[in-house]
């Protein structure tokens, strides 16, 4: 995103002229990378002897195990990470590829960490990825909803509220009708209703969107809580026994070893999520409507002067986003846990917001960030099972701290759409 044209010089590049701001940034990011690399190396040094065993098929403790000597591999990965971080700091790689160094470091760090955690034990790797996808699914949908809203210039802090309402509706409709399709549709509709509140109050009544988001979350938690207390608890049998979506294996793709069962033996909702990522990316960047959405989010006045109806485009973007957020909410009940309980979304809407910001308001970026957050959450529960000295709570903090680091500009610049959060008033 921030690749600049200045760096056309190739291999022995350090002589290239570097702007002071870029230099500061490189040193800051490089410093952070070095810290991570050293932590990784430190973990490798303290890795216990014996083998680290990785379970490649979930539930299978006998076959499909991958055993590696823990400490040598950890040390190797640690050193590789250090080399990558060092190469970034001293600019040994053309700037265009320097982003990959961070990726290499990230993989090395996680690898070293896993070797350290799994030394002498068995780490359920397949479960890890399965769980990552599970946790990430609602986050991806919520973050996509946020991308649509905010690209159109409407801040959406109310994702959490849309989740709650979607989860509630899906549970009730699934229990009463017994139809998964009806439950998903109802969840999407309820998401749209919440989005409609967001749209009307922000676009028509010009209420500050941060205020509005906060209030809508309180409202959603109150209304679902009230209806839960009054109806679902009294008549749980008829109203709160949704059937959980069953996994559908895609023929062919589902048989690929390791990857197949993780990616292609999932519920409809997960497949819808894959589709949503592709569709939102395509629509936002390849279609006329997408261009208009981005235009009203960046410079509504300019969009208005070329004849785009700013408010209408914003309404449509926010309402479509409601569909995605409602589906994301459905995941919590019919996609995963079954019955609804109060506040069951537990802050996931805010993690989705974080993912959207970490992903720099881009659908793909948001998805990657959501997967990272899902990975951290799942890792936390796995590590509790195999008992490592790292407190799970500290791992749960990781996504939030990562987001703070990201918005503080330590890792590249995070820039919101220009008119994000500004109501458009025609003069």
């Amino acid at each position, binding site marked *: 995103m921030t690749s600049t044209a200045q760096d056309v010089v190739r291999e022995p590049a350090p002589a290239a002229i570097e702007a002071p701001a870029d230099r500061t940034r490189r040193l800051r990011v490089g410093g952070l990378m070095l810290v991570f690399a050293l932590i990784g190396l430190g973990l490798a040094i303290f890795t216990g002897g014996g083998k680290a065993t990785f379970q490649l098929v979930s539930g299978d403790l006998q076959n499909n195990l991958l055993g590696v000597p823990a400490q040598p591999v950890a040390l190797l990965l640690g050193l590789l990470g250090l080399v990558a971080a060092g190469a970034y700091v001293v600019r040994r790689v053309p700037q265009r590829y320097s982003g990959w160094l961070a990726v290499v470091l990230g993989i090395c760090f996680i690898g070293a960490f896993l070797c350290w955690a799994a030394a002498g034990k068995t780490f359920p790797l397949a479960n890890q990825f399965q769980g990552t996808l599970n946790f990430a699914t609602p986050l991806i949908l919520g973050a996509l909803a946020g991308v649509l809203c*905010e690209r159109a210039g409407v*801040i959406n*802090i109310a994702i959490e509220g849309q989740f709650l309402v979607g989860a509630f509706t899906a549970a009730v409709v699934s229990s009463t009708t017994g139809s998964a399709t009806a439950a998903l549709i109802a969840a999407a509709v309820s998401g749209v209703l919440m989005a409609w509140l967001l749209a009307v*109050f922000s676009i028509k*009544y*010009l*209420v*500050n*969107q*941060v*205020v*509005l988001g*906060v*209030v809508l979350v*309180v*409202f959603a*938690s*109150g*209304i679902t*809580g*009230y*209806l839960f*207390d009054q*109806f679902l608890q009294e008549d749980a049998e008829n109203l709160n026994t949704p059937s959980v979506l069953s996994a559908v294996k895609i023929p062919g793709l589902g048989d690929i070893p390791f990857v197949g069962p993780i990616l292609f033996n999932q519920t409809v909702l997960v497949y819808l999520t894959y589709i949503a990522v592709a569709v939102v990316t395509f629509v936002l960047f*390849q279609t*006329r409507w997408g*261009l*208009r959405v981005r*235009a009203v989010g960046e410079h509504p006045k300019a*969009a208005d*002067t*070329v*004849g*785009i*109806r700013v*408010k209408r485009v914003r309404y449509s973007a926010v309402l479509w986003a409601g569909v995605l957020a409602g589906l994301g909410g459905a995941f919590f009940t019919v996609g995963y846990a079954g019955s609804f309980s109060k506040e069951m979304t537990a802050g996931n809407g805010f993690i989705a*917001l*974080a993912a959207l*910001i970490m992903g720099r308001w881009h659908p793909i970026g948001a998805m990657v960030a959501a997967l990272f957050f899902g990975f951290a959450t799942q890792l936390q529960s796995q590590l509790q099972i195999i008992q490592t000295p790292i407190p799970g*709570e*500290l791992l*749960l*903090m990781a996504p*939030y*701290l990562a*987001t*703070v680091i990201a*918005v*503080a*500009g*330590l890792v590249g610049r995070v*820039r*919101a*759409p220009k008119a*994000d*959060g*500004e*109501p458009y*008033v*025609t003069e």
Partner: protein
Amino acid sequence: MSNDTTTEPAQEPTQEPAPASPVKEPAASGLPSWAVQGLVSLSAIVLALVVGAILIIVGDDQVKAAVGYFGAAPLDTLSAALTAVGEAYKALAVGALGGMNPIAESLTQATPLICGGLAVSLAFRTGLFNIGAQGQLIIGAILAAYVGFAWHLPPVLHLVLAIVAGLIGGAIWGGVVGLLKARTGAHEVIVTIMLNYVAIYLLQWLLTTTAFKRPGREDPISPIVDANAQYPQMGDTRLHVGFLLALLAAVFVWWLLNRSTIGFELRAVGANADASRTAGMSVGRAYLIAMVVAGALAGLAGTQQVLGTDLPLTDGVAASIGFDAITVALLGRGTPLGTVLAGLLFGALNAGGLQMQLQTQTPLTLTTVLQAVIVLFVAAPALVRSVFRFLPKERGIGAVLAKGWNG
């Protein structure tokens, strides 16, 4: 599928007349603005009670039964509905105001809301959205509780030190936000939301460590703070001296904002950061000061929880106070007096809601809905006006502060 808007046929450049755009219209009536605001707030409360009444009717068992034979005796449904609403609201009112104990309970509930609300209000006036009162409150509560149960000191001194620890904890957690905003431009809304979660996980983790865990208990709960470190109770109720501190804090915030040089700078930065910078004020310093003081105020709310109402530290110590504080501040329109009044109202709603739940089985969550709807209406005065047509025009609180992530 063209990426080029200029080639498409220009649609009619309609300027749908901006419906009652509150941005441009100042108060047009003869009433002073505080009276208009009061009227709008009152109307919002009335509307919220109407919404609540509908929810009560929908959820009431007698009404459900009466609807079953609606055709035979339609009046039964009506009377059942009226009875349900009347009884629930009566229980709410009696629970909040009916006698010394209910009033004391309302004030107890209002205490941390006022301090938390002040934390949000102060930041508000500096042009910052402090969504992080929750996290600041938690950190304040952690430090205050630790000083409270781990140290053993003489009376008064112990309480003072515990309070100071809470203030420092909140100030640090808030100060980080101000510092990041001032130095890197990181948006405070995002940072505060994230730090809220960091704080709650920190608390959960601490409660598993030997330093914080109560000996002999497996669940996450700390030892009870020493009697010397507790706020003295007032009379025979749950109300404690922390309430007076909350009122003092409100006076302090009023003094700071309206009578001090720093406060002038804070308000100037809040009104127009660019102009303030041009005038030679340090915007970054204003952000830092505002967030440090706001954090300390939220930390004070934390001490009130852990040294006054909820003596041991648990992971539910903050309940939803930090978030309710936002709605309190919004209802109070960012002024110290308004925040106190709003805090009292919400405290009364919480206390009354508990009684309502006990007596009429109407769930406490109804008060959450009431609070959200009140603020929603207050934030959109144009909507309230469309119902109560006699109300004069007024600017919405949102419109004053309307700016985006980049602001």
